């Protein structure tokens, strides 16, 4: 069964239809890239799927259950976690705390347990910290040790992106939505992150859907590529199929004259 499936998904902002009757699916264990020119509706798609924006029409099925109308935290609980195009961490919380917030829905203790320091609370807290450290260890030595207690705001840009992914991983999602994970990174960091995306699936078993502009990254990691333009799917297939698709080239370059010139 598809981890994520949308049927006839539609969202309009006033006169602008950002997503127009989109049918889309991500199968278990797949890495799907979502590409398309600026304003094609890619990020809006993520926003709608995670419950930040309610769709005008259509269904969003996560593991076969409709999540339309659920609050974002409920969608996360059902197993969809995301990162943001313009990294949005909790800058004044420590690295470890950021990841612990990601585990919020997987832990249970309320205020009374916290005040009484019940055995369950202490055990849960120890386990949560352990798990957070384990999640951060996924990124090698970059976010461990003394980094645990540093506020997120002092991290380098690339580390912030990594931390954001770690925070999403900590919520134990089935599906990870990565919004331009390599934006603003240098070539070496980009290469590293590309490998990381593959590792996320192979070692940790996440299904991944990513928005990406860097075509080398798309070509290297994707099982399947979906191209959006004006909120509709204009092409779908392997990277090579899509890259040679006439409509895709047109959407990116604008006109047939442009295509002829290239």
């Amino acid at each position, binding site marked *: 069964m598809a981890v994520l499936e949308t049927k006839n998904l539609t969202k309009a902002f006033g006169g602008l239809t950002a997503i127009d009757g989109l049918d889309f699916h991500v199968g278990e264990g797949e890495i799907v890239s979502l590409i398309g020119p600026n304003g094609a509706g890619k990020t809006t798609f993520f926003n709608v799927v995670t419950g930040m924006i309610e769709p005008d029409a259509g269904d969003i099925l996560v593991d076969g259950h409709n999540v339309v109308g659920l609050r974002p935290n409920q969608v*996360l609980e059902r197993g969809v976690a995301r990162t*943001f195009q313009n990294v949005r961490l*909790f800058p*004044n919380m420590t690295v470890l705390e950021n990841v612990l917030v990601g585990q919020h829905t997987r832990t249970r203790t309320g205020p009374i347990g916290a005040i009484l320091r019940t055995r369950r609370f202490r055990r849960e807290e120890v386990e*949560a910290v352990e798990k957070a450290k384990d999640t951060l260890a996924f990124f090698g030595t970059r976010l461990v040790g003394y980094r645990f207690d540093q506020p997120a705001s002092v991290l380098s840009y690339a580390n912030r992106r990594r931390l954001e992914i770690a925070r999403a991983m900590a919520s134990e999602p089935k599906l990870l939505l990565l919004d331009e994970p390599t934006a603003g990174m240098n070539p070496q960091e980009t290469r590293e992150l590309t490998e990381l995306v593959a590792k996320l699936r192979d070692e940790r078993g996440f299904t991944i859907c990513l928005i990406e502009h860097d075509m080398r990254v798309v070509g290297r990691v994707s099982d399947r590529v979906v191209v959006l333009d004006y909120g509709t799917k204009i092409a779908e297939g392997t990277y090579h199929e899509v890259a040679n698709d006439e409509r895709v080239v047109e959407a990116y370059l604008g006109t047939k004259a442009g295509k002829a010139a290239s």
Partner: protein
Amino acid sequence: MAARLHRPDPRRVVRLGLVGGLTAVFLSAIGMVEAFAVRSLVDPEVVLGYVTVALVPFVFGYVAAKPPPVREGMEPVRPGGLSVTAGALVGVLTAGVVALFVVITSEVNVRGVLQNVSPPLLDILTFHRGVSQGVAWLFFGGTLIAAGGAAVHLIPARFRRPVVLAVTWVLIFGLLQTLIAQVFRGLKIGDVVNPFLYKGSRGLSIHGAITVWIAVFALVVSMEGQRQAVRRRLDEATPAMRRNYLLFGLAVAILVLAVTPHILGNFLSEVLDLAGIFLLMALGLNIVVGYAGLLDLGYVAFFAVGAYTGAVLTSPLSPTLDPELSFWTSIPFIMMAAALAGIVVGTPVLRMRGDYLAIVTLGFGEIARILFLSDALKPYFGGAQGIIQIPNISIGPVDFVTSQEFFYIIYGLAIVLIYVSWALQHSRVGRAWMAMREDETVAEVMGVNIVQAKLQAFIIGAILASLGGALFAHKIGSIFPHSFNIVVSITVLMVVIVGGMGSIPGVALGAIVLVGAPELLREFSEFKFLLYGALLIFMMLNKPEGLIPSKERAQELHQDEAAQDAWLRREALGETEPEPAGP
């Protein structure tokens, strides 16, 4: 890098001088100088009125001569003779403005408009020497003091802080004579120390002042190195050792609290009781504002709910309901009532953020007061007559009547609530609040149930405030609606902001400074809100993270400076970044 001499910008110096003069005139015209004139700090001549006026040229002279901060890639600047000249110029200008004021008011009667500009004020400003001679003294004194303020920068950096701190402490010793003399009496050394330090009730004696100055100076200088050593040891401590330090600190704190009321006596305990009640409220508001980031301007509503619930349940004279419970059995009901109030206020504002939230809660605060005042609820809450004869709190046969005894109840509860705040902060709930404060949208996307987290913050904040309210009711013995006006909300918010949002030690210090100090300094009461406002503006400009900031806030508000410090450290170590290779 060779340091360049500081050359203050002349236009800035002139501006500072004029602003300084206007500030001094303002302080005089609102009556502060005259009101403070009688209070002697150091016998015979240092009176609070003059100190207030003299502070103006001193501070402005200091500011004028302050070298600009060293920025990345800029030459460092060190103060020199020109800085002092600039300070002196500020003093001349400040004195000039004040002199102009003196001359004008001695010729023209402006009392119709500014009623505080009286002949006695004029007499004070001219040092009782008549206008012409007084003006000359003004110029002489103002210039000297402002140059002195500027010269502070010439003191070697190592001694600058100790010198200034020591002078400040001399003034504090003079200002808080009643408090400090009482402490020495309580420690049973008052008979020896007090006559030496103080001259009757006229403030410090000369040798007393010198002793205090030397003692503080020596203490600060010797502690300067120690502080870093202690910090290093704390950083290196293992968790087990840290736990021991913490337990030791806690034991000391409890011991100090246990003997405090006996040392301080009845009146000062009373002052601390009041500060303690505000501390309880501030701890609650700290959860709502400091942790969860929900600006609540109507926090007094919960305080009132606690006070009224406590009063209704325990007073035999409560109008309709009078179950006459004891304080201890009423606690669960108070907490339930507060939780309900938290839900009532919290639910409608769930979808609101920032300014809107603040305005709506402001409204709720007023609604609460008006409800308790209303005729409709008079059968239950007594309307404007309030509820009287609220019994004392007792444990078994022991009654807690005097403020010294009540101290234990208030601060006992404060310790419990401090623990509760700490426990919540370091838990899943606290992390959810902080995430919500940082970015509500992202917190929700990362799984935080915003509705639940907000309600939890409101309910827990309400419960903490209500316990403070109940103690207030039992302490005073009678409650009236007008005790629960907006000023209480504002004061509690001030305590949290000035102390340091999200910082428990900060909130404790804030309560003592903002609520305790004005009770001790009766002369100030008339100017309390002026001083609050000035303090708030000063804090927002210079130390927005509060007196004792929480780690996160300090980080957030001083990121540039942290980067700057890091750069300066590298610079000092000679590890400049490699120059880019030339073409």
